[in-house]
């Protein structure tokens, strides 16, 4: 599959690469969300907060301070990381659902602040004229597609490493039963913080990438419900708590949406996302990858 991904730019129109790249960005956020929500069970409904912070910090640094993307992207990532640290410390005392909503509230606060703090954030119109990743490559969709793809692959690998490591084990134990995990010696607070920070940093990274890929960001989009909802929907669809799940879910959902749903049911495609969430929760709580995994293990027996 990776080979196909690498070969595509040579045979398709730039527009389709654009669709794929946006799918990859969402896949990245989904994978990041999954580390915290799927592996560790800390569901957040406001991941857009991290995405937006990464995007805005990176954008403002490039546009107002003229820093090159090679600097702004990491700084954006770190900013999201700091936010996670600040939030995590008080918020992990909250029970699951409250935490999810607190995240939602934070994303909303950031959105409102970005709209109103015009001197710094450029206000409701957003930031435009964000430079591409490299002046050498320029704005060619083909070239930038590779950059996004590579970062995505790295992210998948990171997710894989985590799931196999002892941290992953610790996360899973918290997911299954936090009390037992605590009792058996896992420092749940530290683990939850770790999951949150990694998740936030990766999300922020993709936010920064989004900024340099689109050349334009606005508060409504990057702090909006889209980047809070989509990661959850795609992860569930693809298989929560698996490594490939979010990637699978994101790419398939978005491609389906663009090439199947939109032409056939224009105007209803957001509805489809909601319906997908519903169907998956009702019938396939483990998503596609999860179901495949169970079928696979059944077959092997």
């Amino acid at each position: 599959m990776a080979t196909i991904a690498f070969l595509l730019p040579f045979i398709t129109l730039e527009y389709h690469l654009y669709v794929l790249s946006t799918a990859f960005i969402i896949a990245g956020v989904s994978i990041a969300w999954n580390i915290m929500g799927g592996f560790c069970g800390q569901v957040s409904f406001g991941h857009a907060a991290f995405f937006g912070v990464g995007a805005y910090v990176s954008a403002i640094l490039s546009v107002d301070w003229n820093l090159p993307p090679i600097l702004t992207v990491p700084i954006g990532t770190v900013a999201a990381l700091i936010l996670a640290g600040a939030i995590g410390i008080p918020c992990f005392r909250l029970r699951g659902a409250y935490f999810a909503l607190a995240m939602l509230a934070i994303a909303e606060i950031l959105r409102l602040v970005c709209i109103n703090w015009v001197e710094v954030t450029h206000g409701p119109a957003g930031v435009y004229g964000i430079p591409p990743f490299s002046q050498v490559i320029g704005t060619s969709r083909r070239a930038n597609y590779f950059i996004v793809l590579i970062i995505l692959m790295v992210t998948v690998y990171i997710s894989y490493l985590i799931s196999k490591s002892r941290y992953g084990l610790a996360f899973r134990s918290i997911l299954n039963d936090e009390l037992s995990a605590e009792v058996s010696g896992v420092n749940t607070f530290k683990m939850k913080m770790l999951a949150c920070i990694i998740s936030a940093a990766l999300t922020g990274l993709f936010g920064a990438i989004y900024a340099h890929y689109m050349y334009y960001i606005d508060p409504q989009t990057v702090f909006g419900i889209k980047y809070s909802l989509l990661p959850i929907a795609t992860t569930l669809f693809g298989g929560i708590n698996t490594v490939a799940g979010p990637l699978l879910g994101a790419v398939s959902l978005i491609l389906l949406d663009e090439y199947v749903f939109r032409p056939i049911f224009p105007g209803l495609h957001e509805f489809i996302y909601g319906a997908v969430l519903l169907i998956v929760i009702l019938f396939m709580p483990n998503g596609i990858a999860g179901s495949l995994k169970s079928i696979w293990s059944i077959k092997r027996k």
Partner: protein
Amino acid sequence: MKIIHKIIIAVVLAVIVIAGSLYYYFSSLPTAAPKKAPIKIAAVFSLTGANARHGTSTCDGVRYYVEKINFEGGIRGHLIDLVVYDDKSDPSVGASMVEKAISVDNVVAVIGGYGTAIAVPEAEVAERLKCPYFAAGSIDIKLFQRGYKWIFRAIPDSYGYAKPMFEFLQRLQKEDPGLKKMWITATTTSSAALEQEKFIINALNATFQIMVENFPTGTADVRPMVIKMREFNPDVVVFIQYYTETVLLLKSMMELGVRPKLVLGSWGMGEAELIKELGGKAEYLFGGAGWTPTAAYPGTQEFFEDFKRKFGYAPDYHQLYGGASLLAVKAAIENLIDAGKELTRENLRDALEKIDIWTPLGRVKFSLKPEEHPLGEVHQNIYAEYIIFQVLNGTQVAVWPPEAAAVKYVYPPPLRW
């Protein structure tokens, strides 16, 4: 599988293949009358989502003129193929629709962008992909100060909105030195509104005592703001808000008994709905609009009647924002064809820079260099201006600037509440 089944399947497949090929062949044959190649133009607007109402209105204006032009034979015989895209009131969808229109559907020009948040990314895409783009619903200035070569605006910008407003108020202040205190609000969800407000404040700061109370669109409880307004007791009240907030403010003012000497509204005040909503109480209110049916421009009445007949509702300025943009494109293409040049995006862009036409929205001619525009904008229609109207006898009657005025304004306006 039995032999007979295989045969049946083969026959069915063969029929499908033959039928398909025949259809394809016949549909690509030239028809009796040799058709000239249609001209593909894209309209990208918010047909669903938060901006649906205005996006659809603006798009209807484009559609109206496309139908009219095609009915009259097209542009020098070429019919316009209008491809409509829905940006769902989402900037990133808008941007991707523009990208699709240009790179996949090969349109020669794009008209779109209701709302600055959507117009900006769309403009960026058009600029990058080198295709003429008309911002038909954004009045943001900064976008046209960047020296972009492919974007155009036929409608007024936020300065074009503000100038008639503050000049009008300055004029009134000369007539009535008692006009001293001004209360002004702008919606914080649009940078263009804040820009417009800034121009007004800068111009009037010296002669007015100004209280600013901005709030976002969607604020439901405006009473605290109006209560503060009452404490301040202004002579002039100025709104730069969308429709609902304007109505809410007016209603609160009526209910709380705030009666300034004059009320001047912008944006939402210009909608035809408002007069219906407020009935007689709207009388003598001043408002601004890019266009009103009483404006003294060529073809205004005709457009108004004809549109109403064809689309079933009375148009306001939105339709002409889209329509004038299309008319500009049409004029440019006509010039191109007459000069024997090929219709490419590059040539179209050059032709657009040269047009100077009259439309029901007024005169359209674009600035080519920053020096040609007071704020250094390029490709902005230098003749586009806001019109101040007063509600008289239940209709919006243009009263300012003098060139566009139908009658003289009534001042002091005897407000009906």
